[in-house]
């Protein structure tokens, strides 16, 4: 008798609790989404015509009960990262969606700053496998890829030809300087060697291009292998070469924009840069864009770093279903087509690259798609930001000492990999 009373009371209590908690949940709209505003925080929209904002405007027209707003952060990756972490730690307005650099997904997942996506109703089959893989961590899907990126080799045509190896690029430079050439030409090749993520990206690509690894598949740091050292030494040798100068000393203070300007000014014949440089140096809408371009693009001699951004739901969001619906909308085939075709953001869905208008507007589409497919991932770790900082320190030290990788580089990078 006594235990039956408790049993009945417990069941009734559970029912009351369910009703009570249900009342505290956000109201559901007809479409099953929690009503209320959605906040996306993201780096500044650099697309032509601000296509991200246009897509959000479109969402707002069809979902007036869940209006979305993009809060744009500074262009620098470090500034974005620290603003996002600050928000995740409660210092500032909590977003519903983070537009994360691909390398931050693991950390945000591990730290509990983002929630996994409900995969049961998601069809991810249309995404290119490589960018989608950056959204997975620890067996779960934490985000969907918003845009992807891969480095390309830009070369001044017809002055030089597309190099398929580093040595071909060096030979091309020497050959160019040995004959009559543009008086503005100062060096062969430039890239992003200022002390920010661009330097780490170039470090990875140089090591991979020489057949080495910075961190292998087992998570072991391999910076002290002969191939890795040989790859990094190419940068130091390029900077210390000359005449002719292979890499100009100014490259050590250049970011994407500065290197693009140097290439545009004719100071170098080759440049490593992201696809954004193509649309910045060429305006397909202008009538005079029909002229012959002064440059062409080719894949990098080795694999590129895989860049891009992923959309993830903040674990502090009270509107997770609405947030997921918005993420699905922004990464849908139609949205991806608009972002690439009109805005120039490399699409994360393979079908977009088959579109005739996309191919017309972005004649480099095939080189880009192939580069994305064979691009490699930076180490997937919650400690990537610390690792990148340590890697950049190692590269800077190596460049300051004519190509000698510091003897304790492996220990420093191993420690950074563990935070």
């Amino acid at each position, binding site marked *: 008798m006594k235990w039956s*009373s408790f049993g009945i*009371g417990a069941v009734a*209590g559970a029912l009351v609790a*369910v009703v009570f*908690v249900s009342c505290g949940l956000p109201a559901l709209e007809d479409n099953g989404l929690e009503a209320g505003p959605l906040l996306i925080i993201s780096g500044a929209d650099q697309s032509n015509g601000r296509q991200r904002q246009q897509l959000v405007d479109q969402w707002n027209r069809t979902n007036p009960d869940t209006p979305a707003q993009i809060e744009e952060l*500074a262009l620098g990756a*470090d500034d974005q990262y*620290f603003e996002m972490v*600050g928000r995740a730690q409660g210092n500032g307005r909590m977003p519903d969606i983070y537009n994360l650099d691909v390398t931050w997904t693991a950390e945000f997942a591990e730290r509990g700053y983002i929630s996994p996506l409900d995969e049961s109703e998601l069809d991810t089959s249309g995404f290119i496998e490589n960018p989608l893989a950056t959204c997975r961590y620890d067996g779960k899907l934490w985000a969907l890829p918003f845009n992807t990126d891969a480095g390309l080799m830009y070369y001044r045509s017809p002055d030089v030809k597309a190099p398929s190896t580093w040595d071909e690029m060096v030979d091309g430079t020497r050959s160019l300087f040995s004959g009559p050439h543009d008086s503005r030409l100062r060096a062969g090749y430039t890239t992003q060697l200022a002390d920010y993520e661009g330097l780490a990206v170039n470090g990875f690509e140089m090591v991979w291009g020489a057949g080495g690894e910075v961190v292998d598949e087992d998570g072991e740091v391999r910076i002290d292998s002969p191939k890795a050292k040989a790859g990094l030494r190419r940068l130091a040798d390029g900077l210390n070469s000359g005449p002719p100068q292979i890499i100009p000393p100014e490259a050590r203070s250049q970011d994407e924009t500065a290197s693009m300007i140097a290439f545009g000014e004719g100071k170098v014949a080759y440049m490593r840069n992201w696809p954004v440089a193509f649309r910045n*140096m060429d305006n397909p809408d202008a009538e005079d864009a029909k002229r012959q371009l002064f440059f062409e693009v080719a894949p990098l001699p080795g694999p590129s770093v895989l860049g891009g951004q992923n959309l993830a739901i903040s674990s502090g969001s009270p509107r997770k279903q609405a947030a997921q619906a918005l993420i699905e909308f922004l990464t849908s085939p139609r949205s991806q087509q608009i972002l690439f075709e009109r805005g120039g953001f490399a699409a994360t869905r393979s079908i977009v690259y088959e579109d005739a208008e996309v191919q017309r507007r972005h004649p480099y589409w095939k080189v880009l798609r192939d580069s994305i497919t064979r691009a490699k991932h930076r180490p997937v770790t919650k400690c990537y930001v610390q690792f990148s900082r340590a890697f950049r320190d190692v590269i800077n030290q190596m460049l300051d000492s004519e190509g000698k990788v510091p003897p304790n580089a492996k220990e420093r990078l191993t420690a950074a990999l563990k935070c």
Partner: protein
Amino acid sequence: MHGETNEPEPGGEANEPQPHREANRPESDWKRLSLTAVLIAVGTAVSQLAVQPLDGTLRTIIFGVGVVILAVVGAGLIEWLLWLLRRLLERFRPQRIAVTVVVATLFCVMGVSWGRPAVDWTAKLFEPCPPPVLVRALTTPELLEPYRELAAEFADDEAAKDGSCRPFEVYVYALPAEEAKAGLHAGWSAEYLRKAPTPDVWLPETGMHVEQVVRRRDIDKSGPPMDVTESVGTIPIVLALPARAGLRPEDPEWQGKTWQDLVDKLRDNGIGLIRPGKSTVGEFATVAIYSSAGGATRLRENAEPARQFESWVDSSFQAGRYPAGGNHTALLGRHRELGDAGAAMVLSELDMIRHNEDVRGGPYGPGCDFLDEPPGCLHAVYPSDTYSFDLPLAVLNWPGLDRGAGQRRAIDAFKAWLGGDAGREAMVLEGIRPPPGTPLQSPLSAVSGIIPGGPPNHIKQHGRLPTNIRDEMVSIKDQVRRTSRVLISLDASGSMRERVGGQTRYGLAVKAIQDAHANLARRAEVTLNVFSATIGVRPVDLTSIGQVQPAGNTPQHRAILEGMRAAGRGGVLVLVTDGSNNVPDVTPQQVAEQSGARVLVLAFGEATCGAQVLNDVTNRTGGSCRQASVDTLSFELAELLRGV
């Protein structure tokens, strides 16, 4: 079997009294009613799931309860249910049930609400390192490097105390002082968020900047309240002399003299003076030099000494081909190229130390201490009336933001570390002078070209530079430098109608020009043009520029050509454009043949500084091009105009 007999009812017991209707209900009735209930439940569930599948456990439970209620009521089993409840109430003690309901409710609510946080908290106990608590610290570009080093040192020291985990992380980033102050006034609005993260702590060069923010807050309540630490260290402004000045260690001919005496001495020796453009160092030096040249009252009556001084500084720039309006990095870059043939410079002691470290080839290279020193070394002279940076630290208490206990601890720890022995020793290693009492060592030593005891022995100027004196002197300077003609030519083609947020590109560009105009007009004669294929190249004024309707193609080449002619020799054309030329009325060759004016370009939208014509014309005329986004137009235009 059924009929009038006292059959036991569902849930009932055979020997207890039964309600009349239920007692007489034939078994077939129960079966029929039960079947009806099941069919209602199944039907309801199927039709609901067909329309909208359920999502989530909670919704499934709520839905299940609803289906059962509907089925019971719909099948006419309500009486049976009431009978069952009555029986239960008779058999069980209501008070006990009530208490259990309350307790179970509380447990369930706690479980649902706190379950996940409790699991997370428990998991964190076993995590090797929790995420470090972040503090975002804003400083100026000049102090970025040393403060970043100090922040890293602090985090390492705290990690050493806490085992191997880093409990705190201080992220230091920079904005020019004027922008930082404006951002604080604006509550770090979306415009500033696009430039830099929201700061938790502000590390300006001088308490004068803090005072300016506090004063404005007192007037209009803008900006965050601040907890201010007056000074964590100091950096004096020095006169940096090249070797050819013949300076000797502790030379009484130079050390401890006023700025005016030193300027006279430089002129007597045929050595020019380079002063950084828009920077706090440049401002402080200007105020000190003007003050020793008679002060504001005298200069207001007769500005000729100030005019002569500015003219002499200009000729120093031209003689050494230093970049006009350049910051200390650009100026020191040119100075390195010139070596000992360079002019004297106004620098912070910190910048001079870093320059000398470069020419020495690192901290262990040959010293700049007069003995076999490498070419290009600079030597610090400490004017008696020079000012110093007092390096305050302000904790920003943003309204509406409840700072967590973790971040409060992190900020307190950073402040305590900076004020403690470890922080002060680290400051010395970065070239910042800590409060008296901390022994100085390299780089605050003679090998860096400085005098370790220079400030206490030679500088007599103590206290903070008052804001009103600064404002008055800067205004005199702007007045006497008003010599240039500047023509700003704004693209009004159709693409400028593109909307960005609530405004058009054109509207944003007009706002940027209006923002920059007042400051520029103090030192130059400013005129405005707009251009498009529809309206041609047309002069406008500060009011009518906002009324133009952008339309048509982009006669960019014509705008450059006509703009250069209008600005004339010695003038400056500032082209603000979002695209490339698509009106073939002026060839690139015609643009290339035009000379006289200097051309500065602000490129945004689809325009790029890499475009051949823009690139050629800026290079050829000694101008420059800045790539902006629509969000950074005001800032980039202000930066571009620093070169005027």
